């Protein structure tokens, strides 16, 4: 059961990410990216990371993608010349081949040739692993400093954005 779900959602993620890269219309790419994020979120749930999965949907797929959508709509970008061009095929082919090569090496060395390392089902975790309480406790006790720093980071980003997009009103 687990295996089938994993393969299904993994291939869905891969397919939609390829669509992101290849699609002509930026809006189409955005939709595909949202789909990718959703499937990844499901994968998270399969990894017992419930809180993270929900946060991903809310923030990533919800806020960030909406931001992308706003920008694309705002700029009304529809330029033929910016499509995925079939030029420079050798470059692209070589890149794909490189990726395949590494994948092949990986599969051969690690997956097929390895022992029982890390089988998902055999590793048991506690009942509330990845629950909001656990993660919350972890954030607010062990990792309070990075948490605060991220808030500072957000502040900086806000200020940066405001400064960048301000139009000089002379």
């Amino acid at each position, binding site marked *: 059961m687990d295996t089938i779900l994993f393969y299904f959602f*993994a291939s869905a*993620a891969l397919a939609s990410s390829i669509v992101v890269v290849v699609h002509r219309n*930026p809006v189409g790419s955005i939709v595909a990216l949202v789909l990718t994020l959703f499937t990844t979120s499901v994968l998270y749930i399969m990894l017992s990371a419930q809180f993270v999965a929900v946060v991903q949907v809310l923030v990533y797929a919800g806020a960030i993608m909406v931001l992308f959508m706003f*920008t694309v709509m705002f700029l009304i970008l529809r330029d033929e010349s910016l499509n995925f061009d079939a030029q420079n095929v050798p470059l692209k082919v070589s890149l794909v081949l490189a990726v395949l090569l590494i994948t092949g090496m*990986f599969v051969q060395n690690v997956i097929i040739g390895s022992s029982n390392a890390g089988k998902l089902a055999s590793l048991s975790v506690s009942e509330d692993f990845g629950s909001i309480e656990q993660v919350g406790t972890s954030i607010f006790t062990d990792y309070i400093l990075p948490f605060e720093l991220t808030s500072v980071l957000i502040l900086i980003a806000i200020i940066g954005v405001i400064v960048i997009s301000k139009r000089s009103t002379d």
Partner: protein
Amino acid sequence: MEITINHYILLSFLLFAIGCFGVITRKNLIIVLMSLELMLNAANLAFVSFSRFYNDNTGQVFMLMSLVVAACEVAVGLALVVSIYHNKQTINIDVLKLLKG
């Protein structure tokens, strides 16, 4: 076959590679930023899978931080895109090479 961590690692790698491919190949600046998001997402997947397999919450916490960073980066990046579009009327990154030389 049992699902091991290696599957997740491979998946993460493939997503990352696709994102890389998008960054290198596409000329539209917005698509490039989206491919960048893909790469970040792949890294997040790796974090969480390691967190599961080593029974440690740290990976998930870090994934959240990474998420925040990605959000800020997108915000600033898109602000820059808007600003570039207002100034140069194009978002073709092949044209934007003021730093040449």
